[in-house]
């Protein structure tokens, strides 16, 4: 495979940051040369473990996700009956959860846990970033911070979906969708905490704000808390669940949030640049790919390899 300019640069950068030895460099470059030029053939033919092959999320991120999504859903369940008080299901649903005396305590307790989860996340990513910088491995492209490339990736992806491109763009560890989602969730979290605190401590907020702002602030927070929650629920229900549960190839679910691993074909399809880093960082992945390419010739699409041995299945 002849890598694109950006992929080549990223690969060399990854090897430099990881202080990859010369023999390993040679091994990696040889391996990449053996890959088919058409990346589609790679992820269409490669073998993946449904619960994941390659590391993606640390235990901290998985715990934060677990805390955030459980608290978010329960917060929505205890809050929505108040917002939709006239709906036929609101009162029975609230009663089922223990009535307002119980749900208000649950709601506030869960909100505290959600805030803890957010702080835990901030500490984790800050600490992780500092640690990477100290080790000389920090690469901003590998973070969730958006850049112009994401806009280009989005455009190229749309062209691919519409059939006007043969390849999906070479995307990094976090693609444009995940970045939008991450910042939408972060913004939503911020708004919910901010507005929730305005309900819990309205007098303190009024005292802290400049004169005349208190009324507008409280008005806006009243709107924001309920509408932001609804918006978040809609995004979660329509988009996040689509991407991780319902999208072709992801059904019935991706196991990443539990195992922290992503499947090989998924990594190659949507996060090819991160896969190149995997080749640099994970000798076992190089061994797997080498064995795989030894068994299968992916360069000639029209001629299936007849009588080939079954592809090696990764452990785990």
């Amino acid at each position, binding site marked *: 495979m002849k890598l694109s300019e950006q992929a080549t640069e990223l690969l060399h950068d990854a090897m430099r940051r990881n202080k990859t030895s010369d023999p390993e460099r040679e091994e990696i470059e040889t391996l990449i040369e053996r890959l088919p030029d*058409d990346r*589609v053939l790679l*992820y*269409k*033919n*490669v*073998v*993946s473990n449904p619960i994941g092959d390659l590391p993606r999320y640390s235990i901290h991120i998985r715990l934060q996700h677990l805390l955030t999504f459980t608290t978010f859903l329960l917060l929505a369940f205890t809050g929505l*009956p*108040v917002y939709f*008080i006239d709906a036929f299901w609101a*009162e029975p649903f*609230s009663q089922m959860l223990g*009535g*307002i*005396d119980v749900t*208000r305590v649950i709601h506030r307790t869960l909100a505290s846990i959600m805030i803890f989860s957010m702080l835990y996340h901030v500490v984790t990513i800050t600490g992780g970033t500092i640690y990477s910088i100290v080790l000389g491995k920090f690469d901003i492209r590998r973070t969730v911070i958006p850049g112009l490339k994401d806009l280009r990736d989005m455009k190229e*992806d749309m062209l691919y*979906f*519409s*059939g006007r491109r*043969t390849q999906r763009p070479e995307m990094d560890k976090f693609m444009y969708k995940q970045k939008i989602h991450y910042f939408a969730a972060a913004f939503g979290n911020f708004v919910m905490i901010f507005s929730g605190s305005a309900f819990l401590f*309205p*007098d*303190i907020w*009024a*005292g802290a*704000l400049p004169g*005349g702002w*208190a*009324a507008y602030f*409280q*008005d*806006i927070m*009243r*709107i*924001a808390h309920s*509408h932001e929650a*609804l*918006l978040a629920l*809609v*995004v979660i229900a*329509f*988009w996040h669940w*689509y991407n991780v549960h319902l*999208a*072709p*190839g992801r*059904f*019935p679910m991706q196991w990443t949030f539990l195992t922290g691993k992503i*499947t090989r*074909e998924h990594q190659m399809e949507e996060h090819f640049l991160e896969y190149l880093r995997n080749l640099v960082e994970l000798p076992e992945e190089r061994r797997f790919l080498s064995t795989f390419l030894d068994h*299968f010739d*992916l360069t*000639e*699409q029209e001629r*299936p*390899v007849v009588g*080939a041995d079954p*592809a090696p299945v990764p452990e785990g």
Partner: protein
Amino acid sequence: MMRVMHSKPFLRLLAVLVIGVSSYSTGAGAGAGAFEDDEACLMCHKYIRMARITEEGVFRSYYVPAGTFAKTVHRNVPCRDCHDYIKQLPHRKVEEGVRCDQECHSKKNPATGKPFSHKAIYDLYADSVHARDKNATGLDNDKPYCVTCHTNPVYNPNEAEPPKEILDRCELCHEKRDFVRQWYFHTSRRVLDIKRTGQEIVAICIRCHADQELIERHENAADEEGRPLGKKFPIAATSYQKSFHGKVTRYGLDGAATCLDCHADNAKYYEGVHKILPSRNPESPVSQQNRVETCRRCHEAADEKYAIVDPHPSFDEEFNPVLHKAEEIYGVVGEVVVTALLGLSLFETIGRRRDGVGWRLRRGSTWWRRSRRKRDRIIPR
């Protein structure tokens, strides 16, 4: 013989017999003996169909369910203590009826030596924004009279019998157990916590304040007369019901602010609830002068800035254009987001399916389907 038959004692005996027989025979007076109908009012008022339709088309019932009345606060008050305009049987047409400020029962009140009256509380009410005459007509007829809120409450409904240990103690001095029992009920109803729940308070207030026809009548009249009407008057009930206080109160949470928590002077609660004043009255707890103090009853750190926060939020453009615009923007954003995400998801699904992706990862891959782009998987199953 004729003289005997027309003598007063005979007529009284006859009346008692008639009452007794008719009560027994109809059964309507079951329980009538539970309160003293000395003046034989139930002779007529025991009949369930004793009613009429007024000239205005209003159904008026004059039926007194004796069994129920016997459990009410007024059980021991003779009818004519309040209905003192009744001078003969059958009585004449009632012109005004009972006013709640008249002196009435307990004429031998041992505590004061004076007749009992609701006059003190009635005078507070007479100064309130709700004040009206008993038989007011026109716009004043929309206002609540005493009985709009105060029906004749059932006597201690949660306590069928007083606790024996208490009665035993009372009986050490008060020998008559019946007297002790009645006195216990009479006082305990006032001593026990029988304040209306938040839901009940709101239900009473919104009965009028959510009545759109009533609101329009008063708005039109105020416009015509050029007199001020509270800015929030038209949306007082609906905006409260949409507020956080209103919603949690509707769910039964006691402790969230109800109408009376802000609009009545809570320093003397039972006086305050009868003397609701318009917010433009400086004495009102929600007047500019008193608002901070009122807010502080629940929100300890409240100050002048907090006092301008709207406790009756409305999304209506007329009342709150900022909130109205913000809600509109959120609505548009919501619709755009949902449409965009559904569209993107559909677009992506179609695009990837066309390239041969399957729904589930099976036997190590999701790409077993044939691609329309002629780039099928090479390795066979």
